[in-house]
């Protein structure tokens, strides 16, 4: 009885976090990028991805990120388009890298460090997908710009996650 209640509240929490991630994903599309750098974004939805990694584990985080990109693309009408493939690849690699750095890294990264790792992984995932789609390694021309851009955005997302209320059961390091 208690077990099933716990499972139900976990499902509800994940559903709410997914909804939040979708809204952040959508808001992000409304923010114009100051200068043209394909794939350069603030990564607001990464706030939720990192939070779920910390609080609910790898599988939940990957599920939330997959649902977020699929439902987000359905809302913006880009499902299965190139845009969707890029955002899906970036989100999945980013979430996987943050989870690996957190659970394999023995808490050696701060929350901000995890976020920066996720932001850079997001850009690398996008570039790999882009290079695969157009069958040209030339797209890696944008790698240095994207990596430099990922540092401040990853830092910002990390700051946000650091300030989120955490449940007592998890032991992630702060600072």
């Amino acid at each position: 009885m208690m077990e099933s209640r716990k499972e139900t509240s976990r499902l509800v929490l994940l559903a709410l976090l997914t909804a939040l991630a979708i809204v952040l994903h959508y808001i992000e599309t409304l923010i114009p990028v100051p200068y043209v750098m394909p794939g350069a974004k603030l990564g607001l939805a990464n706030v939720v991805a990192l939070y779920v990694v910390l609080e609910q584990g790898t599988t939940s985080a990957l599920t939330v990120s997959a649902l977020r990109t699929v439902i987000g693309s359905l809302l913006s009408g880009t499902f299965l388009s190139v845009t969707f493939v890029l955002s899906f690849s970036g989100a999945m690699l980013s979430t996987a890298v943050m989870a690996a750095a957190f659970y394999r890294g023995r808490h050696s990264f701060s929350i901000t460090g995890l976020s920066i790792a996720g932001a850079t992984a997001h850009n690398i995932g996008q570039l790999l997908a882009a290079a695969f789609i157009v069958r040209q390694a030339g797209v890696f021309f944008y790698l240095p710009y994207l990596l430099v851009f990922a540092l401040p955005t990853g830092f910002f997302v990390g700051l946000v996650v650091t300030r989120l209320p955490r449940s007592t059961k998890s032991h992630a390091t702060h600072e």
Partner: protein
Amino acid sequence: MTKSDRILVVSVIVVAALSAAYFGFVRSRTVPVVAVITTERGETARENLGGEQRTITVTGPVGKSIVEFQDSRVHMLWSDCPDKICMKMGWISQPGQVVVCMPNKVVISVRENVR
């Protein structure tokens, strides 16, 4: 910032600097350069930079892409894609530089003419 954080940030900067240096090195050599336009079907056009102002039109999954050549530079003059990111990427002229239109799967890349 933990020690791992600092290692991560430093390695990101190093990788960014090395890749920027690589593309800088590629473009610093003086050899004739060409613009190669590739589509889903592979290489579609190969044109020397310079000469008269002219355009080349190629087609992709979402429609037409018009590439304009002028004053030893090349850019995406028009694209039927929804986001127009490729058009906003501006002019390119140095080997290693690319303009990519993801929706239309068109890539303009400037290269040294080795063939």
